């Protein structure tokens, strides 16, 4: 279906990534946001607070990030599309509820505008240190989807995609921004509502009798209903059967949790998105995401000028990771260069897929600024020599 024109501010704007993310969410149909102020994500909720009263949305500033990350789930079960927004310390507080959303298959969006950590770290400065936390931060086993915009335009576009994927797979989706993308101001084009494709909630359309809230179809995703529709649904974070009733057995655990993981894993080909530039025929491939994908460009240009065959693969989905593509490239090229603003997170995924078939070189950065492109260039030149 197409976006509701009521919320869509069609036009060209000069806005930052945080504001663009807010507009993307609104265009996607988000009408409930709960959040708690934290730099560098606050502008997202500030824009929601300003925009929502006049378009029928509800923004509530909760008492903390724990409350925010579960208030949105209450709102989803009442029928809203809902989102919360935070940065590192708040993201840590939200982890239990990321797990709840995964376990109860509550479609919702978490935005993390990454800053340098650990702990309070560098509140106003960039990092990409929450990438593994996004995937593994809540206890137990589960799967999520995480997207990485590298511009305000993409913050808008991927906010819409995040909501669409959440509905498609009944899963929490994480929009992993970074401080640079959140705070950089660029041209953002918001298309007319009738050009914005929206995935509606996959409500059950069959007879009420015999409906099971956690009985999945072929794509492993169960249809959903909402509170107040007369289904007497039960939703629990305990291991549950297809009715949603708690069952404390290894067999129930195996059936439920395997499906929660498989519904992302087995649909990975449909979910995974990346952008390639001159990867065909390349000897070296730089794998990057977020702001670092833009910082890498001068390094790539320098290397190409010097005759090196260097390609660029930019992750749009960090999770699920494009394992298949990296594995395939690893049999053809000399090496990968992975710059990221941490001491080695997504590079572990690259190494896992490469499995020793080619070289992998991390370009680490502790956070607080972006890389010097010279360091990325040096890694490209270095990995080529071996």
């Amino acid at each position, binding site marked *: 279906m197409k976006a509701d024109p009521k919320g869509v501010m069609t036009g060209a704007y000069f806005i930052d990534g945080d504001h663009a993310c807010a507009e993307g969410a609104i265009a996607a149909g988000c009408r409930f946001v709960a959040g708690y102020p934290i730099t560098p994500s606050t502008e997202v909720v500030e824009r929601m607070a300003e925009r929502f009263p006049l378009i029928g949305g509800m923004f509530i500033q909760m008492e903390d990030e724990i409350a925010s990350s579960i208030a949105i*789930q209450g709102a989803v079960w009442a029928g809203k599309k809902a989102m919360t927004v935070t940065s590192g310390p708040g993201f840590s507080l939200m982890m239990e509820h990321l797990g709840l959303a995964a376990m109860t298959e509550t479609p919702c969006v978490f935005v993390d505008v990454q800053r340098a950590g650990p702990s309070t770290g560098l509140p106003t400065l960039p990092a990409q240190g929450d990438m593994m936390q996004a995937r593994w931060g809540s206890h137990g086993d589960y799967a999520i989807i995480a997207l990485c915009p590298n511009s305000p335009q993409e913050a808008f576009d991927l906010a819409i995609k995040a909501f669409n994927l959440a509905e498609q797979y009944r899963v929490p989706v994480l929009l992993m921004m970074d401080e640079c993308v959140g705070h950089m101001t660029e041209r953002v084009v918001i298309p007319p509502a009738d050009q914005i494709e929206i995935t509606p909630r996959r409500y059950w359309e069959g007879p009420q009798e015999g409906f099971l809230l956690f009985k999945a179809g072929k794509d492993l995703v169960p249809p959903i209903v909402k509170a107040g529709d007369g289904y007497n649904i*039960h939703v629990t974070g305990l291991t549950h059967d297809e009715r949603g009733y708690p069952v404390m057995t290894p067999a129930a655990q195996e059936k439920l949790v395997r499906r929660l993981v498989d519904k992302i894993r087995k649909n990975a080909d449909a979910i995974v998105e990346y952008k390639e530039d001159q990867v065909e025929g390349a000897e070296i491939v730089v794998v990057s995401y977020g702001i670092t994908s833009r910082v890498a460009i001068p390094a790539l240009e320098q290397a190409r000028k010097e005759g090196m065959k260097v390609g660029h693969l930019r992750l749009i989905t960090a999770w699920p990771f494009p394992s298949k593509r990296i594995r395939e490239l690893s049999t053809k090229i000399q090496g990968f260069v992975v710059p990221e603003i941490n001491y080695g997170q997504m590079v572990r995924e690259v190494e896992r897929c490469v499995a020793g078939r080619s070289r992998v070189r991390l370009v680490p950065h502790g956070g607080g600024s972006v890389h010097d492109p010279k360091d990325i260039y040096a890694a490209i030149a270095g990995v080529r020599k071996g």
Partner: protein
Amino acid sequence: MTEETMDTDISMPTNTVEDFLRMERLPHIWCPGCGIGTTVNCFAHALEASGLDLKKVAVVSGIGCTGRVSGYMKLDSFHTTHGRAIPFATGLKLANPELKVVVYSGDGDLTAIGGNHFIHAARRNVDMTVILLNNFIYGMTGGQVAPTTPIGATASTTPYGNFEEPFNLPYLAESCGAVYVARWTAFHVRHATKSIKEALLKKGFSFVEIMAPCPTLYSRRNRLGDGLDQMKFYRDNSEILNGADTKTLGLTFQGKITVGKFVDKDKPTYLEAMNAFYAQKFGDKFSPYKG
């Protein structure tokens, strides 16, 4: 025995609250003598008496023995995370104001780990009913000290007795903004039922505390006998004092218990306040938020 007589035998008198329960989930997990089931009975009768459209009633629990209540109610029911039933309920209610949202959980869940959410929901006067079952202990995890454990009472993590000042819950609720505050014990079945009904029909943040026996952990460890002994204690030591000053309602170990309805006042709910404020601010540009 013929089939005909068997049929007659099966049509035994049924409990009138069966319609409110997920009978297929019984027997429940609660211990013999536990007071939670008694309060569920009160809740079901209060729902019946309230005349509410049950399709539009949702019950939200946190974690713990009382947290299991949501799973037994034949309503839209949500068993959330430890301490977070209230913020979940806040989202549910604000997203669909047509719903009657009830939070049903224990003292540890709602006032220790969930204490911050409790005070803020009361402050905002979010339209919800909070039924708090106070058994003075963490039951599910084996009887640890709670923010409600009276001074001198023994718990597994206060083996020499508790010396921390406990919460006076009606006072806490009133001072944070609750518009309806009552306290009963599991002995006061009719009073508790009436209070829950009133709370369900009250607009705003309504709060009902119900003290209940935990014979397995609290009573046993403190040598207070079984569930029945605790009910007798409630009968002999409770004083009904409607309208009592909530400041005076602190509880002591096996001391006198003041029960009653203490607060019943009117104040705009979160949504009423928001709609009125924005209507004034934006005039015609604003249409009242209806979810």
